[in-house]
């Protein structure tokens, strides 16, 4: 059911006014910027990059998934498309990072629009499987694209130092922080606007919504396009972060599952839910990777998924409400 009525009371203190949101957002970016000057440990930036990337992915996923009710299995395709468009342009023209991000976003926005059009005739699980099929098709295309290395992947040469932030990696973290803020702002806008209410109506009963005159197809395509654009934007810096990209790491199932699990763990009803889920699950994965490690990595993800799904049906937000 629609939680619009419950929201102000449920997460009180965070909800009123755009000004409060933007102050908080500015604080996040400022904190990221400041940390590049004061934190000596380079590893912290590697881990933070990954977690921020998941914040963007989870938030983007939730726009189509949580708000609109269409489960997207194809996060990997959107992310990878953004990454590969960025790599191709970087190889051809050596453009600044911002340009690569916009290019990646644009490419995945197009893919998102296409996926949105699919929803015209496909409901529920048919849609989800269709997004899975699209991932395979896009991955196969990339495997056959020799310019970016195909299956071998491609090494990306980029500077190590950065004039403003110290190292290039730190600059990427600040970029990701800004992207996370943008994604969350978009999600917040979607939630509060008539657009968002239309999406919620679709989620709660598409036929009824149509009968009431809601332009369902237009809304779905818009949601999918926005979702895709954000995922593509999140993918664009990935090859620069890794100095390398290959289809195996870009199209990995890990992204598809995480983008789905994080909003579910955090809560799908409010924009803060995917953020909480991303920080929690992403943080846990990073922590386990460099401590207990080995097969326990996968076990921890599995246990978190099962645990939350059983114990916290509405995610952490649901637990907090009680």
């Amino acid at each position, binding site marked *: *059911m629609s939680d619009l009525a419950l929201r102000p009371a449920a997460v009180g203190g965070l909800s009123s006014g755009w000004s409060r949101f933007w102050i908080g957002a500015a604080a996040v970016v400022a904190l990221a910027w400041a940390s590049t000057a004061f934190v000596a440990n380079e590893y912290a930036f590697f881990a933070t990059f990954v977690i921020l990337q998941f914040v963007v992915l989870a938030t983007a996923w939730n726009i189509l*998934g949580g708000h609109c009710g269409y*489960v997207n299995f194809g996060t990997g395709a959107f992310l990878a498309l953004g990454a590969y468009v960025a790599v191709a342009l970087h190889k051809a023209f050596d453009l600044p990072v911002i340009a690569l991000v916009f290019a990646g976003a644009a490419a995945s926005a197009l893919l998102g629009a296409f996926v949105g059009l*699919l929803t015209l*005739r*496909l*409901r*529920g*699980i*048919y849609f989800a*499987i*269709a997004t*899975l*099929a*699209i991932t*395979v*098709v896009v*991955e*196969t*295309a990339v*495997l*056959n694209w020799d310019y970016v290395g195909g299956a071998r992947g491609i090494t990306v040469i980029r500077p190590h130092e950065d004039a403003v932030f110290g190292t290039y990696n730190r600059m990427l973290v600040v970029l990701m922080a800004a992207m996370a803020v943008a994604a969350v702002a978009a999600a917040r806008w979607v939630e509060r606007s008539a657009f968002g209410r239309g999406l919620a109506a679709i989620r*709660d009963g598409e036929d009824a919504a149509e009968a009431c005159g809601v332009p369902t197809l237009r809304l779905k395509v818009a949601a999918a396009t926005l979702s895709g654009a954000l995922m593509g934007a999140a993918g664009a810096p990935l090859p620069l972060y890794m100095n390398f990209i290959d289809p195996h790491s870009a199209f990995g*199932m890990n992204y598809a*599952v995480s983008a*789905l*699990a994080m909003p*579910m763990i955090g809560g*799908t009803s409010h924009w803060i839910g995917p953020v909480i889920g991303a920080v929690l699950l992403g943080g846990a994965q990073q922590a386990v990777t460099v401590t207990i490690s080995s*097969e*326990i990595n*996968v*076990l921890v*993800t*599995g*246990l*978190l*998924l*099962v*645990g*939350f*799904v*059983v114990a916290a*049906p*509405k995610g952490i937000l649901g637990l907090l409400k009680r």
Partner: protein
Amino acid sequence: MDLELLLDATVAGLLLGGFYAALSIGLAIAFGLLDVPHIAHPAFALVGAYGAITLQGMFGLDPVLAGVILAAPFYLLGVATYRFYHATFESRGSDAGLRGLAFFFGVAFILEVGLILVFGIDQVGVRAPYIGQALWLGEMRLPMRLLVAGGCALLMAALLILWLKRSFTGRAAQAVAQDETALALVGADPVKVKQVAFGVATATVAVSGALLVIVGPVEPNMARIYIGKVFAIVVLAGLGSVPGTVFAAMILGVSESIMLSGPAASWTPAVAFGLLLAVLAFRPQGLFGR
């Protein structure tokens, strides 16, 4: 591509399709009929495969026989799984689909780690007199292990179809997929019916697993590569149709084999899944769906 190669590829594809059908049949019931987003289906099959390996190790059993023996405990596993799934998700409301999906992903991961811890990460397989042999049909040679897999698949499909059409629980399972309330009004308990159906589906997965390890050696992270294929087959078929699932599996197998024997073999997955997208574009409910 000359005609002979095309014919060979088609026959090879039918055999491969038989193998795919063997893996997908249980899902046609579990997911197709009962709407359970059973992402852990290939993982269950992999557990069945390791079960067959273990039984062969301990008693020297033929893998197919081992699979059939495992069907009984797998039936109980299926009943238990469905009971848990229903209590935790279905009865709790609208978000069930997404949460059920995440749940089964979690289960699949946990099973994978369990297999690594017990069996290690190396490949393991089974032995059988028919593995490595081929049947001669004119000029063509048909690998026996695929014939066995396909044959068992067809047999399982036939038995399932019989069960669905002739038995009370089978017909009730089909009914519950169409209209749960009506079934309840007739006096049958929908939850019990779905439990039995899921149990039957899981029992077939035991045999699917045995067939999986007959076709090739297995390793714990193998389940992941089949998730996409088996769901694609069930969706292509149209939810709930067992004969449709066999047919869709054959289509997938044949299209893959033909692509593999051609000049653009590296595009095979795009064609196979592109086919799925194309079908869904014209028939959103799948080939034989309701």
